[in-house]
């Protein structure tokens, strides 16, 4: 079994193991990417939540938004890992080996999916302690996890492309902060119909809103409408485009 596919699997597995070590050796970064969303959640639930009146218990409303924020922020940090590899010549070294070159990118993305599912689980656990009570059955949970995996995959590939493009850690860090603020322009923290009309044009037509609404529907039984399909279309499309862009940037990395 040494066909090209088996070899590529073996390379990707080795690279994933490498990237996972990288994550676990930077506990401070991992803790930040978990603590930040948790603090935001506590801030919204206990500080702002009392003043935000939207007809339902605020903690039930905000948790799906925090989950998306957490997973998005975590996935965006892939840009830093990829940019660091570019900056230190590690990508060049891997490209000069007789391996499937892009396996180094696959390793970073796979590690991102694993760690962000883990940190999302912790966020959900803390949310439960603050009173979050999802009504989802096993099928709904499965659907929610599926959507989250798609979301993290898509954003990890976007982050990978950004890392390959900017080639330095500082600029890549900027990208992660951008990612942290995008969910504010969605239905993550307050319903979009409370916002000015001009802003609603943005918030209703960006990918985060259908993703959050679909998660809300799956976890809490609110109406989903076509949000699940919209989310799949958005992030499926983003995944394909970002994957192609990353592959192209990777092949061009020598120039």
């Amino acid at each position: 079994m040494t066909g090209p596919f088996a070899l590529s699997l073996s390379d990707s597995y080795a690279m994933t193991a490498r990237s996972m070590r990288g994550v676990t050796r930077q506990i401070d970064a991992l803790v930040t990417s978990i603590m930040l969303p948790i603090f935001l959640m506590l801030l919204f639930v206990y500080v702002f939540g009392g003043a935000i009146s939207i007809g339902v218990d605020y903690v039930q409303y905000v948790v799906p938004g925090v989950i998306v924020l957490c997973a998005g922020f975590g996935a965006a940090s892939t840009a830093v890992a990829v940019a660091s590899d570019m900056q230190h010549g590690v990508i060049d070294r891997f490209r000069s080996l007789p391996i499937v070159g892009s396996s180094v990118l696959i390793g970073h993305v796979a590690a991102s999916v694993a760690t962000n599912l883990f940190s999302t689980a912790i966020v959900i656990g803390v949310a439960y302690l603050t009173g979050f009570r999802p009504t989802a059955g096993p099928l709904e949970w499965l659907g929610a996890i599926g959507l989250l995996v798609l979301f993290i995959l898509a954003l990890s590939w976007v982050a990978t492309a950004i890392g390959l493009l900017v080639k330095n850690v500082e600029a890549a860090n900027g990208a992660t902060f951008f990612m942290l603020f995008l969910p504010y322009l969605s239905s993550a923290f307050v319903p979009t119909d409370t916002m000015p009309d001009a802003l609603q044009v943005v918030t209703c037509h960006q990918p985060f809103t259908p993703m959050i609404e679909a998660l809300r529907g799956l976890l809490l039984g609110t109406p989903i409408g076509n949000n699940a399909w919209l989310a799949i279309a958005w992030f499926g499309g983003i995944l394909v485009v970002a994957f192609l862009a990353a592959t192209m940037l990777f092949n061009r990395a020598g120039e």
Partner: protein
Amino acid sequence: MSRIIVDANQIQKAYGGKIVLDCLDLRVEEGSIAALLGPNGAGKTTLVRILSTLTRPDAGAATIAGHDVVREPRAVRAVISLTGQYAALDELLTGEENLRLAARLWKLDPREGRARIHELLSRFQLTDAARRPVKTWSGGMKRKLDLAMSLIGRPRVLFLDEPTTGLDPRSRNALWDIVRDLKRSGVTVLLTTQYLDEADQLADRITLIDHGRVIAEGAAETLKRQIGRDVVVLTFPDHRTATHALLTLRGQPATLGTTGDAVHIATDGSAAHVHGLLETLQAASIAAETITFLTPTLDDVFLSLTARPETRSEVYA
């Protein structure tokens, strides 16, 4: 009879209209050490990147062990290894983990891999540090580990891009020993350097490049004779004695030094020549105070070989 293992023909490369490599030819014999010598921006790194399949040439062709670098990159990658200017290591991993990753990517079987890692760690005296994260290592140790990573897969051709830039003299000497040792084990080494001394110490053949062109090529000795000569500097108590010595040494390629109390004489470096100079002076009752040798520096070499305006504005039509 050695055969050519690195064969580059008429390589051209330009970035944004600026020519980096200009119809460059290079041939390296299997089992030898070749040096690409040149200043920053001469095109050394670009050539190494093309030969190691990282960058495509705009025109020209190159083969490594008979495989074309553009059409058969995978076959080329199977016989080469590249050690870049900066240690390309995963700093979060330990030295041993870095090597283990390389062994897995080279598809060594686990037992062979462990043996090879052990061998390389002890050969490069890194065994004690092997279990510490690389980010805690010194620059010299990182370079050695970087080289060890390159050797895991037993490459036939090793590219070393400025292997000793930024190293202290001790680490540099250690690295030189390793390179000599590699040659003994049959590895072909192509290294780039800005230091004439380094090329002189290591290389069987030196290719001098500037502005993407080969400006001289040959064995170190031949090249040194071609590119510059040693100079003997004799100093005297005062300017008057120095000018007297200059007159006495009429017929020799001698000039007065800028300080006024020294005489510079071009020499082949032989004891007989220097002895002759001192005897001539002694016969005229002139005693030199000190005697020193100046070896041509890379600057001298370039000044003598590149008689051309500093800025060239060549652009691809």
